[in-house]
């Protein structure tokens, strides 16, 4: 038998039912076949559990592992970098019928994903207050800054996803009087580790505009369009403090 034929049959039988080939049935009938199947599925589920810890805390181990098994069978890892496996898990949860009673789960998963991407992204030196002080008022509006490669931001209209996520990440007791309104988050890596803070709609619009390559003036206009009462100076201070922005000519690595 060709090696590729063997691999086609064997790999299909790892996360799904075996095809009808006699050679594969002969393997599947041996007790050892289940060892491979169990190891493959466990590897996928363990990786998802490591990469979505807040979702895991919200739903418990059994629920999480059952959902992760369904996800793994439909979207197995594409490469061996399991530290970044599960890119589509938030979208999967949004359409996963058993999660219908937890409509915020997908938005919380998106924040877990933001953490993973922030954790693994390239290094770069962000601009800081000193940089800002060196700019002249007439050139500053035309400056292009872009988001730091590790910066991730997210907005959820319907649920306080960040408040939920944050309280579980920091093992706080969720505030019983939690105001059920949308919120946003910014995750950055100003020094070694990932840090997070709330982000306003204006901040989200500002970073979106920077990511699209707009000038500071255009980005500021976008921010004030979505939130006319935003304190722009405070927003810039927050973004610089978080290390969220780098100059456009910055090298990353």
């Amino acid at each position, binding site marked *: 038998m*060709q090696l590729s034929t063997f691999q*086609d049959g*064997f790999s299909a039988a790892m996360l799904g039912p075996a095809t009808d080939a006699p050679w594969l049935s002969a393997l599947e009938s041996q007790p050892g076949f289940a060892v491979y199947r169990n190891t493959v599925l466990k590897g996928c589920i363990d990786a998802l559990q490591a990469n979505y810890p807040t979702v895991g805390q919200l739903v418990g181990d059994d629920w999480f592992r059952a959902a992760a098994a369904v996800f793994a069978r439909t979207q197995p890892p594409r490469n061996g970098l399991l530290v970044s496996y599960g890119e589509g898990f938030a979208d999967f949860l949004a359409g996963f019928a058993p999660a219908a009673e937890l409509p915020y789960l997908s938005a919380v998963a998106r924040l877990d994903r933001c953490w993973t991407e922030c954790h693994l992204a390239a290094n770069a030196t962000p601009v800081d207050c000193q940089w800002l002080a060196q700019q002249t008022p007439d050139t500053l509006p035309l400056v292009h800054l872009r988001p730091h490669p590790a910066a991730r931001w997210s907005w959820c209209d319907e649920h306080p996803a960040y408040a939920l996520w944050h309280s579980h990440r920091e093992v706080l007791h969720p505030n019983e009087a939690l105001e059920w309104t949308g919120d946003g988050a910014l995750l950055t890596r100003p020094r070694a580790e990932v840090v997070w803070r709330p982000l306003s709609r204006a901040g989200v619009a500002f970073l979106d505009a920077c990511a699209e390559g707009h000038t500071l003036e255009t980005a500021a206009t976008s921010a004030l369009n979505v939130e006319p009462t935003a304190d722009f100076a405070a927003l810039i201070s927050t973004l610089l403090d978080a290390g969220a922005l780098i100059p456009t000519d910055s090298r990353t690595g």
Partner: protein
Amino acid sequence: MAPALTAGLGLKPQHYDEALRCTAPGLWWEVHPENYLAYGGPRLAWLEAIRARHPVALHGVSLSLAADAPPDAAHLARLAALARRVEPAIISEHLAWSTWGRQYLPDLLPFPRTQAALQRHADNIARTQDVLQRPIAIENPTHYLHIDGHDWLETEFLAELVRRTGCALLLDVNNVYISANNLGFDAQAYLDAFPLHAVTEIHLAGHHADPVHGDTLLIDSHDAPIAPAVWALYAQVIARTGPVPTLIERDDQLPAFSELLAERDQAHHALTAAQPEEAACN
């Protein structure tokens, strides 16, 4: 003279601070490069801090060298970049496959050792060594299945890969013990036939019996102390090879660091007492 590397441990994030501080003689650390192929950030910084104090080995699990396809070029390039960064003492992979048809199946999967598979495997090793600019060590896998269609015994297959590619071998003694048990061959005879001259690293680990099938099906679980029978096989191997860098693998049910270090020290003492075969004959 004892080699610079004696017995090492797999680096676990839970033990990171203790790993950094530990000054046990001959200690080295092994990592799966897949966990450190980040573009930047704290993982690489952790690894570089460890590397500043101890030798490090990269033990790959996803190059899929036994697949009927070349290893992923982008993955190889990133592995080479990591190797330039940490200058590992050893780079190793497996006699197995895991990536196929745009899927990664997180396990080390078996295949019929045919003539064509040998050629493909040798090509894949050669390509990897070309990119890395150094030999890699290939590890004997754990077996759970009787597969029809082998043209080669595993020991001969490995010897032929060494001959064709100049690669080294990583002998996992626990894998030999488990495979011998599961497939019904003699572990001692397998080790007698193993091309020990090419072995540059040894792995030791714990295993457990399958919950349904019991001792007839042992699982390479890396979640327990090394079994006495595996220690005994190991003693026989190093009596013949002399000291070879030896790694204790523990990936699940992690005990306290001190417990892992005690197991490591046992291997360290065995290695410092072991003499090369030539010396033993004199």
